């Protein structure tokens, strides 16, 4: 049910944005828009299914953990 709603939402947004870009002959923008939209769609579907969505903050946390250990705030 939720997946259906997501699909409808994405189709609506693409039909809202893409025809304008095509009529203005902006090829690069159209490609960027579609690529990012596909990525966003994938993210939405992953969030709705039982697959655990990766948390980007965990990656940054691993990057800065050593610094925090050195300066020892808290």
């Amino acid at each position, binding site marked *: 049910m939720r997946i259906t709603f997501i699909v409808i939402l994405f189709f609506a947004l693409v039909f809202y944005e893409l025809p304008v*870009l095509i009529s203005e002959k902006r090829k690069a*923008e159209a490609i960027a828009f579609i690529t990012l939209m596909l990525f966003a769609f994938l993210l939405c579907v992953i*969030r709705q299914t039982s697959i655990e*969505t990766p948390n*980007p*903050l965990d990656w940054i946390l691993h990057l800065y953990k050593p610094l925090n250990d050195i300066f020892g705030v808290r």
Partner: protein
Amino acid sequence: MSDLVNKINQFQFMLLISLFTVGNSILLLPELLYRTAYHDSWLAIIIGIGASLLINMLLLKLSQFYPDLTWVEISEKLLGKWFGGLVSVFMLFYLLYGVTVLLFLSGQFINIEIMPETPLVAFSITMAVIMVFGVRLGLVTLGRAAEIFFMLVTLLFILLLALLVPQMELTNIKPVLETPIKNIIHASFVYFSISGGPLVCFLMILPNTLRPNFKSFQLGSLIGGLFIFLTTLTCILVLGPNMQFETYPSYSIAKKVNVEDFITRIELIFAVIWFVTIYYKLALYFYATIKGFSDLFKLSKFTSISLPIAIIAVVLSTVIFPDTAYESMWLLTIYPFYSFTAGVILPILLLCAHFIKAVVSKLMVKESR
């Protein structure tokens, strides 16, 4: 003529900076700072304001060398296509992170304090919709609206403080400087990471400003800092040691307003201030993000990618903070370093690259003679 249409003026720029500095900090900082610096957190804010004024000089210096270029273009010009691109991608992740966290925080506040039964993501989506709407209308519209909203925010803020004066007790901030100096420095670092460091996103907005100068940048930052300083000081004066039990101290002091049992429960006034400021922070962050993305991929119409990026930010905002313990751990220990890297170290790196390049080109000219 087209320059005048697409650019904001000095005054609007100043208001945007002060609204951006107030942002979510007005709600978040009193509580976060009290955890480390206790009743001396107002001292930490003064140090933090000083630090952010110093960093603003750095940012403005960088933008004066390249007045027409945004951050992404400057880093590509100075550091080359690949390394500069890497720096830009790091920066864009920082900005996207900012949008995501602000969406989460705006939902969290309404969910905890105003409408507890509605799911958090509903507010994030609402906020994202008006954010996209504002950015698609353009920076000039945001700047003009800021002139009206800033007046509203200032009036309501002064009203709130004036009504709270009878509740203040000076004994609550005594003894001054009781907390160790290390904690105060840490707290000022936290202040800087939330209010001062993100000002780096104005490097994306400076090319769209008419004659940006030193005065408006610093004055805007100072006014914003003053708002947070006054809020935190009032929180400490009114609540005292009770501050440790409050999730949102600055919201709960507004509940304490009581004038002869006639004017009571005016906390939504505070919520209005917060809505306006967080909206501006969110919209400017989002503007910088999509502007940066479109500069990186050399797109001429930057609003075309606003919808997918907004959807990505909303989805990520539901995963970033699994619980409040993680949230405060992140904001107190990891985020200051992250913000410091993006807001201070990278601009210094770019300035160094600029000076090295200038020296090298001077030497080349001498040799060719």
